[in-house]
């Protein structure tokens, strides 16, 4: 009851505050919005946690005695003047052709995620892959990567990857496994494979598909099942209904003026999303209009969704509807567009949105052939069908929407396939089950009871990268090689054939799926390389085959086969498509009072397969900013109705520990316990849970031996309702749970940090972003005070010196976190763990702040603001360092000298942007042999007691300037890409020499939208922002 009162109080305070506020009010959290006294007290407590948090229960007395002893020992130890012990240099015996010691090499390969490939370039230092970048030539990447691509390098070196073949938990050799498999297969051969079942994840490799077909030819009665928890079943079912064949839908955002996303997070999760982000933003980049604001144009995005996704956050208009209401909304849009869809009004519970619907439908119809409607994979087939029909009616097909044949057509139904397998298992038909990747024991729909049914199989073999939950249920576990250790090929989202080439010999005993399939087919063991190459030779055209070596070399060099995308196919909507909208095939509108549970793949650890990746676990989720956990995410008013509220803060306002109430989620007589998280903007009476947490056997990071990270939402997920289900019961337990988030960290008081305008406002006042500073200058002039006054001697940055600077476009940033993880990989940033994040000690050099406007129940806009070190010209941190550990470089970089730092943390306290990070403990891993291999050799690995922060990737600056200097030429613009900039799919970051008048960053900073963060404190930051501009529909924005 008191909780309810608290929240009601908070909201009332928020209302009051907003009522009195002038202009647009930005806020980052509910408490900041409400300015609750407790919260403000904690914010003003400057050192809430630093002096009081111990990693264990060490008493003060014990600490002091230990401290004295270590000080004495340290003094003696420090007396040694002997230099570090000599080290070995180990040259090659016969040097490989390309390697030049000390210089990294880049190899093109492809990374498979969510059933499609993204081309990447992998940096290799003397045979040791250290960093992944996007492949600019690859259509699915265009040089960008996502968090999964960036973090894949850490998985390669994961010490918890399975290292040997195991039989019933005992270490065995591949020879033993081969013998056991041969024997079992020999029996199957006599039965034409009747008892053989293979379960794999989506087959992305054409070579593997060919091997599969060969295997099924050898065992005609065997079955190959495909299952992945995050799948596109709905899309393929709808495509069957609509066109009578399985097609993939592709979107051309460059041609779309108006986009309606129906629960479709195309910026983060659709295959090809990196490309889609670039295409979508190509129509919104005001910076490319130069100074001509009057001519600026933008596309417009409408998003309808239950939870807040990055796509929804970037939308010009976002409507929060429960997942189960989206179908009726789609029907209403279809009806408004003149399609007979059997539903003309939005359901009762969504009433009040008629105006929204009208405006969207009118906008879509006003842009025939230049509009686009997308349906998300989470939505049932009917929504996809309606999207096809609307696009068809609006004449978008062939313009903004294209269709291609699904390249592995006929094998696209995941859940149905797994169901078949479960039935066969139950009948006892299966004698040999080979699980080829994936973790079905953990993530299969719970109603299939796969684990129990599996027990009837006399021989179960699991092939995968980890000794995971599924491996524990199988007789044999065979280790799978990482994609950087094995040869393969893969198809991109558009079908482009991409090559997967290894950069390192397998660290452990892993083998590739190709090698296993050769074994299953009964052939002699063949290296994966031979298998892949053989298929490419077989498929080569006569022209390519004429000089196959040259062709193969060129494919390896580029990482892909140019122009190998699936050809476009023109399809026509079946005449009777509407019959699929009939009863039984559609979702019933949930009753207004019913709670709905919505499943979502986790934005950082996806379906759970990345659970043991520390970078991803600690990466804050884009909207909730939670780390190391999932939660039952709900809107503030739903929480209020249920009597739940934000609990107390664990360690102080600036820091991210929250004690949240724990509830029991009950659905169809199954239940899990989950902490609550309140997310403004979430649909009412709807609760989102992220999949992928609660792993039992992930590893030391993701959960093992009784310790888990988060709760397992798969325990509520059934094959009938894989994505959302009404009828959820929520029972408060009275317990609380500590959640670690980063949203409240480094609170920036009440200043205009994010600036934004509508397109109309921008056209009228192009320099709105610089307005506050202009006013301030005017006031200062009137008062006669100097605008810029400093006691310190200035620096000279005139050309020919370089003046490094960065500009970040807030219109572009989608908050995807790729920069955060890229920075972590490039700069050897350690993982600190949940307890430390809760104490506000995360180490990310770049953070992404999320801002909202509007009220807590109905936030209107969301903004993302990446904040790295500003590299101030008048840097407050430099003046307070007693040991000159942070100093100014002649090029204006704010250098951090780790070996001078004695850890006073004065600099961090004096930093107005709160971008400095301190190694409170020995976070860096110096000891795990594999993890040491991952470190970037060009960046120092920091020890305990040292401050660190963004360096503008100074190692890349030095590398480029030395290269340019030795070649006797100036550094070209774009030659230096900081890690964050290189990874960004939205091209939101520009870096370069401001003194170079032709540079991109100079052009960006010359934009009227350019503004500095906290310019009034006269720090003269080198990192500036381009204010965000949105393009709302005039009919909707006027109230």
């Amino acid at each position: 009851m008191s909780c309810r009162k608290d929240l009601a109080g908070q909201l009332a305070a928020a209302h009051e505050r907003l009522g009195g506020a002038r202009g647009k009010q930005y806020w980052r959290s509910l408490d900041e919005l409400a300015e609750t006294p407790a919260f403000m007290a904690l914010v003003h407590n400057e050192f809430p946690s630093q002096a009081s948090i111990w990693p264990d229960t060490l008493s003060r007395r014990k600490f002091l005695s230990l401290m004295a002893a270590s000080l004495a020992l340290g003094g003696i130890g420090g007396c040694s003047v002997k230099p570090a012990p000599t080290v070995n240099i180990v040259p090659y015996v016969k040097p490989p052709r390309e390697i030049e010691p000390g210089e990294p090499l880049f190899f093109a390969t492809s990374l498979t995620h969510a059933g499609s490939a993204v081309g990447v370039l992998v940096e290799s230092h003397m045979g040791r892959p250290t960093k992944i970048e996007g492949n600019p030539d690859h259509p699915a990447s265009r040089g960008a990567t996502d968090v999964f691509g960036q973090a894949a390098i850490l998985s390669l070196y994961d010490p918890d990857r399975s290292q040997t073949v195991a039989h019933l938990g005992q270490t065995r050799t591949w020879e033993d496994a081969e013998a056991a498999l041969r024997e079992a297969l020999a029996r199957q051969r006599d039965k034409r494979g009747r008892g053989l079942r293979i379960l794999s994840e989506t087959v992305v490799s054409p070579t593997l598909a060919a091997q599969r077909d060969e295997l099924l030819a050898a065992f005609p009665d065997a079955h190959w099942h495909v299952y992945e928890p995050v799948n596109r079943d709905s899309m393929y079912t709808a495509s069957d209904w609509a066109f009578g064949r399985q097609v993939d839908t592709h979107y051309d955002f460059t041609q779309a003026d108006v986009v309606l996303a129906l629960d479709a997070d195309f910026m983060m999760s659709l295959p090809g999303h990196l490309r889609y982000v670039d295409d979508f933003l190509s129509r919104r980049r005001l910076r490319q209009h130069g100074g001509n604001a009057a001519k600026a144009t933008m596309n417009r995005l409408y998003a309808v969704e239950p939870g807040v996704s990055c796509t929804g956050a970037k939308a010009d208009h976002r409507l929060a509807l429960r997942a189960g209401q989206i179908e009726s909304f789609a029907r209403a849009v279809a009806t408004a567009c003149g399609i007979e869809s059997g539903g003309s009004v939005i359901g009762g519970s969504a009433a009040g949105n008629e105006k929204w619907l009208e405006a969207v439908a009118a906008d879509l119809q006003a842009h025939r052939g230049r509009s686009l409607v997308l349906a998300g994979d989470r939505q049932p087939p009917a929504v996809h069908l309606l999207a096809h029909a609307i696009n068809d009616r609006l004449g978008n097909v062939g313009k903004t929407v294209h269709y291609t044949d699904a390249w592995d057509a006929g094998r696209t139904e995941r859940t149905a396939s797994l169901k078949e397998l479960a039935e066969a298992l139950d009948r006892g038909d299966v004698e040999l089950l080979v699980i080829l990747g994936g973790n079905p024991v953990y993530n299969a729909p719970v109603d299939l009871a796969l684990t129990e049914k599996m027990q009837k199989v006399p021989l179960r073999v699991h092939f995968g990268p980890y000794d995971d939950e599924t491996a524990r249920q199988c007789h044999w576990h065979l280790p799978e090689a990482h994609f950087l250790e094995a040869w393969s090929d893969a198809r991109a989202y558009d079908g482009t054939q991409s090559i997967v080439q290894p950069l390192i010999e397998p660290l452990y005993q892993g083998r590739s799926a190709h090698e296993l399939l050769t074994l299953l087919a009964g052939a002699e063991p063949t290296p994966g390389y031979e298998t892949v190459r053989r298929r490419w030779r077989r498929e080569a055209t006569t022209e390519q085959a004429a000089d196959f070596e040259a062709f193969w070399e060129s494919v390896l060099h580029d990482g892909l086969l140019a122009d190998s995308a699936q050809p476009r196919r023109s399809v026509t909507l079946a005449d009777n498509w509407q019959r699929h909208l009939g009863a039984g095939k559609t979702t019933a509108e949930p009753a207004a009072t019913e709670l709905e549970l919505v499943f979502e793949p986790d934005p950082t650890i996806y379906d759970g397969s990345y659970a043991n990746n520390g970078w991803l676990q600690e990466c804050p989720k884009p909207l909730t900013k939670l780390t190391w956990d999932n939660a039952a995410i709900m809107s503030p008013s739903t929480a209020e109705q249920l009597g739940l509220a934000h609990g107390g803060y664990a360690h102080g306002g600036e820091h991210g520990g929250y004690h949240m109430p724990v509830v029991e989620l009950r659905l169809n007589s199954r239940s899990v316990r989950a902490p609550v998280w309140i997310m403004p903007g979430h649909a009412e009476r709807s609760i989102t849970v992220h999949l992928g947490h609660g792993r039992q056997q992930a590893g030391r990071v993701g959960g093992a031996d009784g310790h888990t990270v988060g709760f397992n939402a798969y325990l509520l997920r059934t094959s009938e309702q894989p994505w959302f289900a009404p009828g959820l019961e929520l029972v408060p337990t009275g317990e609380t749970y500590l959640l670690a988030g980063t949203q409240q960290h480094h609170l920036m008081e009440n200043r205009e940090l994010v600036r934004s305008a509508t397109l109309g406002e921008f056209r009228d006042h192009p320099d709105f972003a610089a307005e506050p500073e202009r006013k301030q200058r005017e006031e200062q002039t009137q008062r006669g005070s100097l605008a810029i006054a400093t006691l310190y001697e200035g620096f000279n940055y005139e050309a020919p010196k370089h003046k490094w600077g960065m500009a970040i476009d807030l219109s572009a940033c989608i908050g995807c976190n790729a920069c955060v993880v890229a920075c972590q990989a490039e700069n050897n940033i350690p993982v600190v763990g949940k307890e430390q994040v809760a104490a506000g000690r995360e180490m990310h050099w770049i953070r992404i702040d999320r801002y909202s406007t509007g009220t807590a129940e109905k936030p209107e806009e969301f903004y993302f603001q990446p904040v790295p070190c500003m590299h101030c010209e008048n840097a407050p941190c430099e003046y307070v360092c007693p040991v000159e550990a942070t100093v100014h470089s002649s090029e204006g970089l704010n250098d951090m000298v780790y070996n001078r730092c004695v850890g006073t943390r004065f600099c961090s306290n004096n930093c107005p942007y709160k971008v400095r990070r301190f190694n409170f403990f020995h976070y860096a891993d110096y000891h795990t042999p594999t993890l040491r291999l991952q470190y970037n050799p060009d960046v120092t690995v920091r020890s305990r007691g040292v401050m660190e922060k963004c360096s503008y990737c100074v190692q890349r600056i030095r590398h480029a300037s030395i290269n340019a200097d030795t070649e006797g030429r100036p550094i070209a613009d774009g030659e230096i890409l900081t890690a964050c900039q290189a990874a960004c799919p939205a091209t939101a970051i520009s870096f370069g020499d401001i003194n170079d008048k032709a540079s991109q960053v100079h052009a960006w900073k010359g934009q009227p939208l350019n503004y500095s963060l906290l310019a009034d404190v006269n720090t003269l930051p080198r990192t500036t922002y381009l204010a965000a501009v949105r393009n709302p529909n005039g009919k909707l924005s006027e109230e």
Partner: protein
Amino acid sequence: MPQIFPPAMNIISKVTLFGSFVLAAFILWVCLILVRSSYGTGTGVVHVQPVPFSHEHHVGVLGIDCRYCHTSVEYSSFAGLPPTKTCMNCHSQIWVGSNMLEPVRESYRTNRSLRWQRVYSLPGFTYFDHSIHVHKGIGCSTCHGQIDQMPLTFQVPSLLMEWCLECHRNPERKVRPREEVFNMKYKPPANQLELGRKLVKEYDIDDPATITSCSVCHR
């Protein structure tokens, strides 16, 4: 009340007071000397190598160019240590029976690398780049000394930061014409400062403020 301290205490206290300062300064001085001594810096220390390779013989007597073995010195941060293959280019023909060279032949036979001891060892937070120094006219002998006269290789300079800064603050004192970089016999001319200033300009060597910025060497 009787005196607690005898009169002699006046002297003792003065001596103690001033003596403690002197002692502290002495200890500090000893430390600073120790740090700069060859014991502290490793200067002049010969390491035990798998093969007693003589630069004197190969460079001084035979006149082999530095870049024959240190191939990447002009293009990479690391000058490169020759692979066994490079040794065997000659030693598969000459001195084939030498016992001294057995480790080299063994390495070639067994495909196992020779494990050399590093002579010039910089701390992990210092990033030195050979290529830029070579391109800006800093000769090999400037840092490596008369290596052509060393039967066994040892470190010549202290490699302390003050030694680096000596040149980074006054590059004109050390810079030489590019074509003389690999010349072991090169002696700076009498007008070094004049020539140096000219070369600093010609080779576009950044001003001391830039090349003494911390992040030039520390990242």
